[in-house]
């Protein structure tokens, strides 16, 4: 077993009487390619929000490389290397693609609080942003406003912003959601090319993507972990088929 990067212990979150996430013990290895699946309303996004610090847990702990980070706010966790993408694009729509990435890079390297020197003098920020766009094959679109791009490319900008944070742990919330199937390969290719040392947790509904990408799969049902294993084991499990795959096949 590899080293653990991100870990939760009995992590729970209630919304009033609703137990959205209950007592999840979860381990994400360094460099893992892990998928989180489950029917709608299983608590997957809530779980991600607990990992990033956007939500505080009702109970339980979150650990990063063995260190308790439960009390750290979101901004601090980003500095420690936990980054995420959103299920629905959250981009700076009125700004250019390049500037979208620059904002994230500037935050990471600590250039953002500077009030005196102009953005244009921080060529380190601009250069790094251009490199990220190049790696994602977005360079042709660097000068476009995000709102002018097709949705598939916008999803890629979402990824580019996150890569600008140089994460150790990357949480991808349905990265290909809403993208026409003809374009989804752009995003999947980009995810496959992510540096190996990054631990990636991906929420995905498309089973093809899950089985192509993930080395391990966790199934969540009604806020709790229902099963965990290799994609083959999960696919073969009759219980999982019953609650999830069967449902998906019917739907």
């Amino acid at each position, binding site marked *: 077993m590899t080293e653990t990067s991100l870990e939760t212990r009995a992590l729970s979150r209630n919304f009033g009487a609703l137990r959205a996430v209950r007592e999840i013990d979860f381990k994400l290895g360094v460099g893992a390619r892990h998928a989180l699946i489950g029917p709608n309303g299983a608590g997957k996004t809530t779980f991600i929000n607990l990992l990033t610090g956007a939500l505080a847990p009702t109970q339980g702990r979150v650990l990063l490389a063995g260190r308790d980070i439960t009390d750290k706010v979101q901004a601090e966790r980003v500095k420690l290397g936990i*980054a995420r993408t*959103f299920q629905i694009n959250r981009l700076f729509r009125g700004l*250019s693609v390049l500037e979208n990435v620059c904002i994230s890079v500037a935050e990471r390297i600590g250039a953002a609080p500077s009030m005196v020197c102009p953005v*244009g003098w921080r060529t380190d920020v*601009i250069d790094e942003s251009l490199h990220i766009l190049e790696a994602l094959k977005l360079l042709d679109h660097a000068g476009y406003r995000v709102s002018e791009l097709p949705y598939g490319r916008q999803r890629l900008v979402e990824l580019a912003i996150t890569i600008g944070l140089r994460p150790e742990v990357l949480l991808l919330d349905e990265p290909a959601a809403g993208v026409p199937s003809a374009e989804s390969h752009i995003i999947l290719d980009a995810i496959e090319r992510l540096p190996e040392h990054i631990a990636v947790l991906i929420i995905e509904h498309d089973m093809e993507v899950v089985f192509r990408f993930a080395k391990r799969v966790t199934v969540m049902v009604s806020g709790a972990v229902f099963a965990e294993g290799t994609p083959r084991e999960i696919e073969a499990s009759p219980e999982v088929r019953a609650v999830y795959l069967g449902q998906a096949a019917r739907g």
Partner: protein
Amino acid sequence: MNVTACPTAVSARIDQMAANVLITRHRFRWWELLPWLASIGFYFALPDYLGFGAELLIAILFALSLDLALGYAGIITLGHAAFFGAGAYTVGLLAFHGIWTEPITSLVLAASTAAVIGLASGFVLLRTQGLTLLMLTLCFTALLQEGANMAHDYTGGFDGLPSLPIAPVLGVFEFNPLYAHTQYLYSLAALLVCFLVVRTLVYSPFGQSLTGIRENLLRMHAVGSPVRRRLVLCYTISAAIAGIAGGLWAQVNAYVNLSALDLDRSATVLILLILGGYGRLYGAFVGGVVYMALEHFLARIYPTAWQLGLGLLLVMIALFARNGILGLGDRLWRRYRVGRAGS
């Protein structure tokens, strides 16, 4: 024909352009001189209107302070008069009670008072957004106004503080109520200094992060930005500049009254900025000139109904030019260029 060489050449050009836009954005353009040349031209061409001119410059400065908070950081406020009033009353109280009458240091004190109030109120109010924030800023200003009204013994209450003694600028240039030369040039100098500060800020990485907050709050949290600290800092700086505008207003008019803290003032500055175009530095200038000219000249022609004309103009702006007059100009200019490139 080499098929592969073609797209790379294009991409190199486009990413170069995108990077160049960022790299050169803060550089001064020739047309940025125009408002200043116009202000100097105004001084020589219309010596009888210098009092009006000083009012105009102060309105522009006030709108510029709002642009930093509203246009760049997206802080929606209907209470910016709080800081204008704080600055005005700082100058007024110090002068009226004979504590301090030197104008430039008074402005610094006005800015400091407004900044402290901005910091304290921002710390509490900027936890909220949108309509809640709008109402809270409005209430906060109303509270300040009522406070100024009730502190009658110091502030003169409803009557205000008349005939403020203001020392000559730099010990030489006197404020003459009949010939407003000093008032005009002094206001112009203050506007220039504040403008340079705001301009530097908005083109800095700090300003870029404010734009990020305006464009997508959740994303800024997700890239690890200390969003609330940035907003409070921006609000404080904006308040300080509004305080300078208020201080100038008190000095130029040699009086302070409750109108400095009026809802009317908060609304007017908002209208003026929306008219000119927010989030683009020069919107305050264009909006200021258009609004003040309308108020001045329309009010003369139609004393009772001039606001009808203003209302119509605002409706047109809201319907057809969401980004104000400058935004409209921008769009026309682009269309013209595309048309020329096409033909």
